[in-house]
């Protein structure tokens, strides 16, 4: 399916249509609601071109993807195929050159920068290959920062940070600085941080790539348990074949096109 084959009527606001009948309108509403009600993530005809003119390179070419609620979706593919780019677009960090993205029933392409930031804040937890923890903050404080951004403060935030770290098995490492934690432990702190505020979507880019096989395994199991426990939708970019076992669905990206 390419972008031109999409049923545009599902995604165009009724006010832009010429005199829609009430029946059309109802059908339109039903269509959107049905699709987005079943799917946590819907990408339609997503294209991404970096640069312009002679130096431009098209990284994504009409990507369509749907991820149902509560599923763990894996995105695999060779290096440079555009996985991170697609993840960034699906997470509302990059704006695609063309196409639409719906998250949790809301269209995020076309949202203002501020609205988008707010959407990410309330709905998405991020996990990165490089952990991206504040080196000067303890494990608990790194989690608290995320909670504070989401409006949870003071004693409540402290307690919640401890609970989250306990959930990822780091109850005895609350006051450790990142430099005193192993890679796997750091990634678990990052997972606790991603879970702060209980977001419905988790976006992870190569969460196990920096880890040895043992800690990679711990992290994988943790991700699976946490996702399944609370019906979170997880989109994970990875090279790690071990992750295939925990995934509900696996999609491959090659040269900017999904092949599955």
């Amino acid at each position, binding site marked *: 399916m390419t972008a031109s084959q999409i049923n545009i009527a599902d995604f165009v606001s009724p006010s832009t249509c010429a005199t829609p009948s009430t029946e059309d309108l109802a059908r339109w509403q039903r269509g959107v609601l049905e699709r987005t009600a079943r799917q946590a993530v819907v990408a339609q005809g997503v294209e991404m071109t970096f640069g312009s003119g002679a130096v431009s390179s098209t990284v994504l070419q009409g990507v369509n993807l749907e991820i149902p609620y509560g599923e763990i979706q894996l995105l695999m593919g060779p290096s440079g195929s555009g996985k991170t780019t697609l993840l960034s677009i699906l997470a509302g*960090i990059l704006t695609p050159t063309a196409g639409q993205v719906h998250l949790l029933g809301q269209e995020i392409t076309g949202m203002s920068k501020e609205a988008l930031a707010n959407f990410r804040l309330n709905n998405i937890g*991020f996990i990165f290959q490089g952990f991206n923890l504040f080196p000067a903050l303890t494990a*608990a404080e790194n989690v*608290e920062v995320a909670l504070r951004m989401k409006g949870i403060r003071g004693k409540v935030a402290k307690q919640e940070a401890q609970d989250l770290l306990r959930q990822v098995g780091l109850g005895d490492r609350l006051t450790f600085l990142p430099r005193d934690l192993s890679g796997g432990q750091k990634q678990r702190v990052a997972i606790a941080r991603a879970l702060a505020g209980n977001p419905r979507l988790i976006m992870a880019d190569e969460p196990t790539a920096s880890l040895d096989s043992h800690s990679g395994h711990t992290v994988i199991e943790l991700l699976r348990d946490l996702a399944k426990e609370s019906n979170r939708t997880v989109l994970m970019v990875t090279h790690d074949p071990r992750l295939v076992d925990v995934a509900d669905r696996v999609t491959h990206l090659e040269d900017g096109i999904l092949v599955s």
Partner: protein
Amino acid sequence: MASIARKNLFEDIPRFLVAQAGIMFAVSLVTIQVGILDGFGRSTTRLIEQSDADLWVGAQEMLHLEVTLPIPLDRLLQARKVKGVQRAEALMNRTVVWLDSSDRIVPARVWGFNPEGQLFGQFKFVSGAIADVKQPYTFITDRSNLASLNLNQVNDVGRIVPFKAKLVGLTEYTQSMSSSASLFTSLENANAFGGGNSNSLNCVIQADQVQCLNPNGLAATALDQPQTPPRRLNPADPITYVLVKAEPGTDLQALKRDLEAALPGTRAHTKAEMTEITRTYWRERTGIGFILGLGATVGVVVGMVVVSQILYSSVSDHIKEFGTLKAMGASDWVIYRVITEQALWMAILGYIPSMALCLGLGVWTVAAKGIVILITPVTAIAILGVTVVMCVGSALFAIQKVTHVDPAIVFKA
């Protein structure tokens, strides 16, 4: 709650210390320059400020406190008759030459006043008392002048050429930084000291040759020999100012006009006007305001460069974490707040030790050099303001770096 700003700041202690050293340098430089400027300005007008007079009446040609023409003592008597004058006292100012015990001369300035009066001489005494200058040929001076006059203590004797003169008291906060050593004494003593150095060569022409009794103008009197006491003043003797205390509730502007009308050749100034005229004169005449202002500006510039540099490198080190915050959905303001908070911490932590340092330095310079670094509460608060503006202003560089960071960098390993 964990403060990212504070923790980032203390994360790299050596870098933090370099930053604080830079800020301390800047703050101290600004404080000292402003303090010296204030101290200098204040010192030039100390005698005016310490006086209880509401009005200063002097020759109409007056340039500032120390440069004016004499007026006759008779003006004092006339002033006492003007309605609204509660009290009037004479003040006399003469330049003299001080000759110390090792025959070195130093310019000095004698101030004669009424030791029984109320309008001048409310000094802070370190030793001696005001009444001591009623004795003939005595004086008191600021203790910061001891070294330049080559005196050690009260009761030491030197010469106010050609008279021998005895130090009977020491004061504090009475010396102007722009002026030669001020010697305070009674009107009669001042009149004698001040008239003494005219024609004191005492030379005559004898058989076509000039013969001088005291070739270098020094009286022959030995230091331990008695001198004829100074004579009483008469209404024709020259004084410098008539100090006036107005009756309570008197309109000073009206009284000024009445005094100027009643006392020919004079002009009256309120205490505030006198202070302003004198302070402005010294500031402009010496260019000290410009020079010290330049120093203070250099301090601020250096401070800004140091703080910008440190904040910028701190932010660059953490760009990925800031990007992460942005990716997670933090608004730019959350990040600005972190950087601004970091700048504020630097400001406060640089300011406090700098102020302590400057206050300590001020105590030392007064004691050792008689130089006042005046740090008033207003100055202290203003400098805190400058420090905060300096540090937060320097944060702008770092802030614009974070503003332009693309949250997509967070996925780069």
